[in-house]
């Protein structure tokens, strides 16, 4: 197998492991973000789309730092928005 491909797969698996280890409230925040991303696609297919009314933006817990996987998820969203704009 191509070495670059192997490296990409390993990085992907490592990221998935990191995501699995996040605290549950962080995972719920990601689920809500996924719901927001999926909603227009589902609606376009005529399927039911639900976005939970949980405010994830203002939610911060005592002494908490935004974890790396969530940051990278947000960066991905920024990039996607920028691509959409152009």
């Amino acid at each position, binding site marked *: 197998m191509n070495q670059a491909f192997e490296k990409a797969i390993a990085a992907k698996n490592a990221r998935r*492991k990191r995501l699995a280890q996040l605290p*549950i*409230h962080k*995972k719920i925040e990601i*689920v809500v973000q996924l719901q927001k991303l999926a909603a227009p696609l589902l609606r376009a297919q005529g399927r039911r789309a*639900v976005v*939970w009314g*949980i405010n994830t933006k203002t939610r911060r817990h005592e002494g908490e730092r935004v974890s790396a996987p969530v940051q990278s998820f947000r960066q991905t969203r920024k990039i996607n928005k920028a691509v959409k704009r152009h």
Partner: protein
Amino acid sequence: LKQAIQVLNDLKREGVIAEYAIGGAIAALFYTEPVLTQDLDVFVLSAAPTAGKLITLKPLYVALRSRGYREQREYVVIDGCLVQFLPAAGDLLEEAIREASDRQYERTPVRVLRPEHLIAIALQTCRPKDRARVALLVEQAQMDNDYLHSVLKRYRLEGKFKEWAK
């Protein structure tokens, strides 16, 4: 979500339900990476006496309505979440609820199905998304393998598990 969990704990304390445990994708979330889901599945042991094999969730819906929560098709909307209440129909689900693990969500106690039972239930229902959930749990959840195999053996799901693993 926190409010939904608090409502579940209140309903249990008030005797409206005998026991509950979160199941489905949100339960799996406690053990695996996040995946898209639209609802919160709550498995419930009814406190009301059952007439033969007929299980009723009527007292639960009455209690939720009295708290001002509205129904939306098969769901009840609590704290912006779609919550689906499912009665414990069958021995596997009853055992899964009784042996659920005690967890915390934002310092609120919550009962969540064990990963071993989530696998057994997914194998029983066996839709494509259930098979995907089995894969995710086997790969990422920390499990007691002896316990998993005892559950699979008790509910005659070993064959399905072997078939899935092929």
